[in-house]
C-alpha cells in the first residue's frame, strides 16, 4: 500500500496527534489513491475550453489559443464555482462513545471534518464550522483563505462532547443562520428522535442548501459484539434497561439498526439529501468521495 494512503485508515490516523496533520494526511492519502482511481477529474485544474461569449470575464480569455486560432476561448476550471461549506458537528454525549477505547465517533467526525476543511480550502471553497448540542454552540464563519484552515482546525481540536442533544432544533437554528445556498455537512450519530431531525433536514434542503449527512456510528453500535447478560445504559439519560442476553438480542438489535439506517437512507434520498452511513472502522475516503461527488454536481 502506498505510504500516504494508509492515513485513510482510522487506526493509523489516530496515532497522529495534531489535527492539521491528520487532515493533511487524510487528504493526501485520498488524492494519492485517486491517481489510479476513476475519480480523476475532480481536481480544481483546467477542464476545457469554450467559446467566449459577451459577459464573460475577459481575464479568462486564453491568449495563447487566440494567437493560434484567432478566436476567443475561455479556460474553464472545475473549481470555478465557489461552494460555501458548513461543517456541522454534533456535540452530543453519545458521540464520545467508543467501544475499543481508541477513536470515538466524535474523533472520527473531527478528522473527517478537518480533512474536508483542508480539501475545500485548497479548492478555494470557503468553509465554516458550526457545532451544536441542544442548540448551536460555536460557529466559525466560512472563508477560503489558507490561514482559515488553522482557525477551523484549532476550533475543532478544542471541541468536546457535552451532553444531551437536539438535532432538530439546532438545524432549524442553522437554517436561519445561512444566508446563501450552502453545502451543509452534518456529522452526527443521529441518536435522537429521527422524525424531527429529518424534518429539519428537509427544511434545510427546501431552503436550497445541499446537505450531506454523515451518519457516524461506533463500530460496536454497528456490530454489537457483546456477550452474556448485560444492562445497557444510555450515556445521555443514564437510563438503564432491564438485563438482556446480549447474544440473544443481537439479531434483533442489528435488524433494528439496519432498519433505522435504511429509513434515513430512504427519507434522505426522497429529499435529495446525501446520506453517508459510516462507522468508526471505515476509511475516510468514503466521506471525501461523497463530498467531491456533491462538489461536481454543484459545478
Amino acid at each position, binding site marked *: 500500500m502506498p505510504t500516504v494512503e494508509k492515513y485513510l485508515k482510522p487506526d493509523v490516523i489516530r496515532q497522529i496527534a495534531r489535527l492539521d496533520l491528520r487532515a493533511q494526511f487524510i487528504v493526501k492519502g485520498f488524492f494519492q489513491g485517486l491517481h489510479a482511481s476513476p475519480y480523476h477529474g475532480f481536481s480544481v485544474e483546467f477542464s476545457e475550453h469554450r467559446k467566449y461569449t459577451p459577459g464573460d470575464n475577459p481575464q479568462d480569455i486564453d491568449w495563447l489559443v487566440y494567437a493560434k486560432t484567432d478566436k476567443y476561448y475561455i479556460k474553464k476550471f472545475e473549481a470555478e464555482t465557489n461552494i460555501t461549506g458548513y461543517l456541522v458537528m454534533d456535540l452530543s*454525549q*453519545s458521540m464520545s*462513545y467508543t467501544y475499543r477505547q481508541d477513536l470515538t465517533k466524535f474523533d472520527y467526525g473531527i478528522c473527517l471534518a478537518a480533512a474536508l476543511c483542508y480539501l475545500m480550502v485548497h479548492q478555494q471553497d470557503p468553509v465554516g464550522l458550526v457545532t451544536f448540542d441542544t442548540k448551536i454552540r460555536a460557529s466559525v464563519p466560512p472563508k477560503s483563505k489558507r490561514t482559515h484552515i488553522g482557525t477551523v482546525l484549532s476550533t475543532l481540536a478544542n471541541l468536546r462532547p457535552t451532553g444531551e442533544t437536539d438535532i432538530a432544533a439546532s438545524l432549524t437554528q442553522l437554517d436561519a443562520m445561512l444566508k446563501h445556498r450552502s453545502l451543509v455537512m452534518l456529522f452526527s*450519530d443521529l*441518536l435522537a428522535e429521527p422524525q424531527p431531525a429529518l424534518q429539519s433536514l428537509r427544511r434545510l434542503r427546501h431552503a436550497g442548501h445541499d446537505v450531506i449527512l454523515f451518519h457516524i*456510528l*461506533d463500530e*460496536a*453500535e*454497528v*456490530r*454489537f459484539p*457483546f456477550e*452474556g*447478560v*448485560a*444492562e*445497557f*445504559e*444510555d*450515556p*445521555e439519560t443514564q*437510563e*438503564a*434497561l*432491564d*438485563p*438482556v*442476553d446480549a*447474544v*440473544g*438480542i*443481537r*439479531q*434483533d*438489535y*442489528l*435488524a*433494528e*439498526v*439496519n432498519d*433505522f*439506517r*435504511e429509513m434515513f*437512507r430512504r427519507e434522505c434520498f426522497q429529499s435529495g439529501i*446525501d*446520506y*453517508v*452511513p459510516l*462507522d468508526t472502522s471505515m476509511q475516510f475516503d*468514503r466521506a471525501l468521495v461523497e463530498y467531491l461527488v456533491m462538489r461536481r454536481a454543484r459545478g
Partner: protein
Amino acid sequence: MSFANAILLAGAALISVPILLHLLMRQQPKRIVFPAVRFIKQRQQSNRRRLRFRHLLLLTARCLAILLLVLAVARPSVPPELVDRFVASAVVGGLAIVALLGVAAAYWLQSRRWVFIATLVVAGILVATGAALAVSWVGERQDSNVAGGVESPVAAALVFDTSPRLTYKHDDKERLDAAREMALWLVGQLPNESEIAVLNSRSDSSAFAIDRGAARKKIESLGPTAAGLTLPQVVAEAVTRVRESDLAQREVYIFTDLAAAAWPLEETRRLADVLKDGEDVRLYMVDVGIEKPINFTLGDLDRFEESIPAGGTLALRTNVSAIGTGGERVVELHEFITSEDGALPGKPNERPTRVRQRQTVSTTPGSAQRVELRASGFAEGTTQGYLQIVGGDGLAWDDRRYFTVTVAPAKRVLVASPKPVDDYVLFLAEAIAPSGDASGKRYSCDVMDLDQLGETRLEDLLAYAAVCVLDPTPASTKLWTLLGDYAKLGGGVGVFLGSNAGGNVRVPVGKINEAAAGFLPAPLVRIRTRTSPPFQLVTDNKSDAILARLANYDVPWGAYPVYKYWELAELPRGARVVAKFDDGAPAIVDQPLGQGRAVWMTTPVSDAASVLGYWNLLPTADPPWPFLGLVDGMMAYLTGGGSQRFNYATGESAVLEVPARFASVVVTTPPGDDLTLQPDAKQQRLFFRGTEWPGSYLASAGGTLDRWQRGFSVNAPAAECNLARIDPTVLREAIGLSALQIARSQEEINRDVTRGRVGVKLFPWIMLVLAAMMAGEFVLATFFYRPKAVEKASAAELMRAA
C-alpha cells in the same frame, strides 16, 4: 420393562442440576454504557420471550439427555412380545414432548391464536394417548412374566414329542435322542433352584421333579409312545403346570420335529386360547426334526375280515408312500409261527415268521402306491403276522403293519321256508354260502321246509349257529316255541316276514299272532303297501353290528324299492330297531331272547322279481351288494361272530371275549412285558387299555392244562408317522405367538432364552437416542449462541445502497 441396575435410576435426580442452574445460577448482568439503547429497547420484549423459549428448549434437551443417560446405564430391557407396545409408547411420549414444546413456543412466541389452540389440542391428544398406553401397559405388566434376569430360578416344563416319528434316524441318531441330548444340556443350563417338569404324550407325566438328577433320569427314560395326548394337549398341560408354580419366571420348552401331524391346527388353536390367558408363560420351541427326511411308509391297513373260515383267504390292502425319495420296494406278508405246544417264548414281535407273499412296488416321492397281499391255508385258531417293507429307512415304525385274524371252521346255518323250499331259499342261501366258492366258506347252509323244522328236535337244532325262517306261514305253535327255546339257549333266529304270514281272507293276521305269541316281538297289525313312491330302507345307525358291513358305504337304498311290509304293533322294551323304512316303521328288529337273539325283518328276501306281487327288489335289484352286506352282517350277528375285533389303533381299548372260567388273563405286550389282568366276569370280556406299543399282543389263560389263547394287533395310525413338516409361519399363527422363535441349536436356545428372560435390551437404542439428543442440544446451543456475521454484510449493503 425391567432394569439390570435399577438402583442407578436414582441418577435421574441429576436432572435437578440443569434445572437448578437454570433457576438459581442466573448470570449477574454487566453494566454496559451504550448510546444506541433505543434499538435494544424496541425489541426487548419479544427477545425476552424468545430467549425464555430457547432456554426451555435447551433445558428440556439437557434434562432428557440426562434422563436417557441414566436410563441407559440402568440397562433396561423389555420382553420381546411387548417391544411393539413399548416402541409405540416411546414414540407417542416423544411426540407428546414435542407437542408440549410446541404449545410453549406458541405461547411465548405469541403465535396466532389458532396455532396455539391447534398445538394445545394435538398435545392434549398425544398426552391422553400416552397416558392410556401407560395405563394399559401397567395393567398388562401386572400378570406378565417379569423378566428377572438370566440367573433367577424358573419353573420350566420340558415337553417332549414322543411320537414314533421321533425315532427317525438321521446320522445314526434318533430324533428323540437328539431331543434328549439337547434337553439334558438345557437342564444343566437352568438356574439353580429352578423347578423342572418333564412331560410327554403319556398322560401319567409327573409334576415338578425334586432335583435336576430326577429330571435327567426322567428325560433319559423317555421312549417313543404312539398313544396318549396330542402335543398341543401336552403343551397346554405343561402351561397349566408351570402356572401353578410360585416362581415368577415360567418357561415351557417344546422338543418337536415340527411335523404337521404333531400340530393338528384345531388343537393348536385351542392351545392358543390357553396361552392367551396371560403372557406369563414363555414358550420356546426346539426343532429336532430334519428339514428333508427320507422315508417309505406303509399306510393303514384297509378294513379286512378279522374272522376267516378255515381254508379262507386273508387279503390285506394298503398304500406304500414315500417322502423325499422314491424307487422300488418289496412288501412282504409275514405270519408268526406258533410252536407246536403253543408256548410263546420272548417278545411277541420277535417270534419267528414265515413269508406268505411278496410284492414289489414302485414309488415316487409324494405319491402312494396300492398293494394287496393275500394268504390262505391258515390253521384254525388265532393267526398273527405283519406286512413289512423290506429294506431299512430312517423310520422303522411305519415299515410294519401288524394283523391278527381268527380262523374257524364254517358255521352251520339252517334256512327254512314253506314249500317249495327251493323257490324261497335261493337268494338267502346263496348270500350265506355262495355255491360257487368251494373253499373258505364261513357258513355252511342247510335247507328244510317249515314242517320239517317243526319236527326237528331242539338238540339237533342246537347244532346250528343260526336258523333263518323265510316268509313263514302261521304254522303251528310248536314250531315257534321250538324257535323260542332255541334262541333262549343262545341261538340266533332270523325271521323274514312275507305274504304267507296272513293278512288276507284265507289266513287272517290274528292266526300268526296267536301261533307265535311269545316269540313275536310285537303282534303283526297289517300289510302296508305303497308303490309310488315305494318305501325304502334307512340304515343310518352305522355302529350297529348288523349293519357293520355297510357302515363304510353310503347305500343307495332308493334303487332297492320295497312295496310292502308288515306293520308291527308297538315294540316292547328291549326290542331294538336296527333299520327303518322311510316312513319310520321298523324294517329290522332285534330282540334278545335269553342268551340268544331273534332278528325280524318285516319284508321278505325271498321274492323273485319274476313272481307276480313281489314285495321288494332287495335281493333282486342289480347290483345286489347291499343285500349281501346286510345278510352277511345279520349272519355274523346271529352266529355271534361279528362283534369280535382283533385289530386296533394305538390308544384304543382292546376288548377280548374270555370264557367265564378264567379269573385272570396274562397279556403279553410287544416289548415282552406280561400283565396279569382280571376280565369282567359279568360281560365275560377283558378290557385292555395299554395299547401304546404297535405290534402283536397275546392273551393267555388256563396254564398248560386248559390252554386258552387269543391275540390282537395294534398299529400306530400312519398319519402319526408322516414326517412332512409344518410351515413355521402357520404354526406361529395357529399358536397365536407371532414372535415365537424356533431354535435348532444350543446357541439359538441360549439366544432365545436370554432374550426371553432379560427381554430386548434397550441400551443401544437409548444410546442412539441419547446421541441424537446431545447432538440436538449442541446444535440448538450453537444455533442460539453463534456469533452473527450479519452486521458487516448489512453495513456494506447499506453503503452500496447509499
